[in-house]
């Protein structure tokens, strides 16, 4: 894992002091809420329905046991004993006091963490593949690249008042586990003639106008990456729309201006930017990369596994993924208990996951965009012990990627932008499908729920998506089918008129039963939908 040096630490410490003074000025009335808002947002502090909400950055979703412990400590000391893992691999606290935030940021800084640029119209936390450094299928570890981007984007003086927020994801596998092409910039690391470089996609996103990012450059060599991104951002900062917040994302610029024109503008800007010496030397990249060297895996670790406990065997089959090192495995902790709140974990659960990471996973954890936690490097011989401890803490639900592994935004229970509640719908669906055998028979089915058109719950990318809307003051839920955030990326289609909460749950069940009826062989729901089309499912929903 990356470790701060004195420069990194000084920057994060300075931010704490800066924000302490900004909070003081706000409390003293020296600045208005309108002036304070962008300042607090750039520190991840929102004013939500019930209180201030603090979003803590977890860069590219990677954190240590000690950092995870700190998240548990803050939940206990300053919040109401829980935290919420988000689709951007971050953690949110829902009940924060403005007066406490400088001290919370200081606590975070003491373990090399921060809340910098987790909101605001700036470059947000860089997201990545949760299996980075462990995945059997990766070309390289994407995290050194993501860390390079974290540093470059932190307090970037030119790009802190962009037309709108800006999200970047970096992956390094053909399998996309980070919804890369639904980001403002998606980067896929690839090898060309033995040399690593970046394939660049620009202009993806969800929200009210979902778009899949087109490829803007098939190969940018490592030594040009920051200059190229600088050019991408400058073109956006200068020409992105500022007349209408709903049309201010880069996807709209590219959609209206054309990908070819944008590509040409970036090429021109890049030709200039590249003369400025903005790219750090290769030695800096090497320095960062060294932090991500593979841990000292035990070469003699055994590959065999005792699966005689049937519950354990199911969990292994569903939640444990292949590791690149022999005798090791990737453990997924689904933070999706039946009837629970997707992504919510208590302080004690956070502590437990931290302890497991320290004891069994070389002190590392990951947060996934599906609001789950990963222990990336667990010895197969330790899996049973890990599972038992997770089970005792209510964290061993074997539902990864199944219908109850639901992504849900906080919705109207917490969020001031929401039109409808998301969490109760997720709870009812997970209860309806509580039977694990039935879920496993249904197989991979990504269900995603958003409580408003901003699509924080990724409904556009759900195999089944649910969008909560306000219908004359009453919560109403529309269903979309056929979306995907993976390498077979697509945007779901709205099926028809919406339902109330219970009606939506019933409709989901009818969709699922129709799928079971018409699927061929071991075809996934998504593949069946793509094969048979809308009408079969519309008939099932409304017929």
């Amino acid at each position: 894992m990356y470790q701060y040096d004195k420069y990194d630490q000084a920057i994060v410490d300075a931010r704490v002091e800066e924000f302490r003074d900004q909070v003081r000025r706000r409390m003293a009335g020296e600045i208005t809420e309108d002036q304070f808002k962008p300042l607090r947002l750039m520190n991840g502090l929102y004013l939500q329905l019930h209180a201030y909400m603090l979003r803590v950055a977890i860069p590219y979703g990677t954190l240590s046991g000690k950092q995870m412990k700190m998240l548990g400590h803050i939940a206990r000391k300053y919040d109401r004993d829980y935290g919420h893992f988000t689709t951007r691999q971050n953690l949110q606290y829902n009940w924060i006091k403005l007066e406490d935030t400088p001290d919370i940021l200081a606590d975070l800084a003491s373990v090399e963490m921060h809340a910098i640029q987790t909101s605001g119209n700036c470059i947000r936390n860089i997201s990545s593949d949760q299996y980075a450094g462990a995945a059997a299928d990766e070309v390289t570890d994407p995290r050194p690249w993501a860390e390079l981007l974290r540093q470059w984007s932190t307090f970037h003086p030119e790009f802190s008042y962009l037309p709108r927020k800006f999200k970047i994801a970096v992956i390094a596998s053909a399998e996309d586990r980070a919804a890369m092409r639904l980001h403002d910039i998606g980067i896929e690391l690839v090898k060309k003639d033995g040399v690593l470089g970046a394939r660049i996609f620009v202009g993806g996103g969800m929200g009210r106008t979902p778009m899949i990012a087109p490829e803007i450059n098939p190969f940018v060599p490592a030594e040009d990456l920051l200059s190229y991104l600088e050019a991408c951002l400058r073109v956006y900062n200068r020409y992105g729309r500022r007349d209408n917040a709903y049309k201010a994302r880069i996807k709209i610029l590219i959609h209206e201006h054309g990908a070819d024109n944008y590509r040409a503008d970036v090429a021109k800007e890049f030709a200039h930017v590249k003369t400025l010496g903005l790219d750090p030397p290769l030695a800096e990249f090497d320095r960062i990369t060294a932090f991500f060297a593979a841990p000292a895996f035990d070469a003699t670790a055994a590959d065999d596994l005792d699966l005689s406990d049937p519950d354990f065997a199911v969990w292994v089959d569903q939640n444990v993924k292949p590791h690149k090192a022999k005798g090791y495995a990737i453990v997924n902790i689904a933070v999706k208990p039946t009837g629970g709140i997707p992504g919510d974990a208590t302080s004690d659960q956070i502590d437990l996951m931290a302890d497991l990471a320290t004891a069994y996973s070389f002190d590392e954890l990951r947060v996934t965009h599906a609001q789950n936690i990963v222990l990336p490097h667990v010895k197969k011989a330790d899996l049973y012990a890990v599972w038992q401890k997770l089970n005792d803490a209510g964290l061993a639900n074997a539902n990864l990627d199944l219908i109850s592994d639901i992504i849900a935004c906080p919705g109207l229970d917490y969020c001031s932008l929401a039109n409808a509640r998301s969490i109760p719908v997720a709870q009812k669906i997970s209860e309806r499908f509580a039977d694990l055998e039935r879920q496993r028979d249904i197989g991979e089915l990504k269900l995603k729920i958003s409580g408003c058109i901003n699509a924080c719950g990724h409904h556009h990318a759900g195999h089944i998506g649910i969008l909560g809307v306000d219908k004359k003051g009453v919560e109403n839920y529309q269903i979309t089918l056929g979306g995907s955030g993976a390498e077979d990326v697509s945007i779901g289609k709205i099926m028809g008129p919406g339902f109330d909460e219970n009606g939506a749950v019933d409709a989901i069940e009818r969709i699922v039963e129709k799928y079971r009826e018409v699927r061929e062989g071991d075809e996934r729901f998504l593949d069946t939908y793509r094969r048979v089309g809308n009408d079969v499912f519309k008939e099932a929903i409304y017929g």
Partner: protein
Amino acid sequence: MKLLTGNDLGSGDVVWWTGKGWSRNVHEAVDAGDAAEAILKEEEAARRVNASYAVDAGADGLPLHIKDRVRAAGPSVRKDLGVNPEIRLEKA
């Protein structure tokens, strides 16, 4: 009937105008009538409230809009954390 609501600047707590000050309990809220705008202006300027606004309330004395009913009640999925979790989110 018009209620006034907002958040406490320091703690962020949801608060309601009682005629004399701000309460966390919506049942203590009073009709601000025509004075709504003037009260909000004065209270904001004195930083006794933040992000304040007026809401229409029904015969039950509770806000009509579901969003403000959620604010009054607390999260429906964490009844242990709300100030008045018994409040129904649907209009009476």
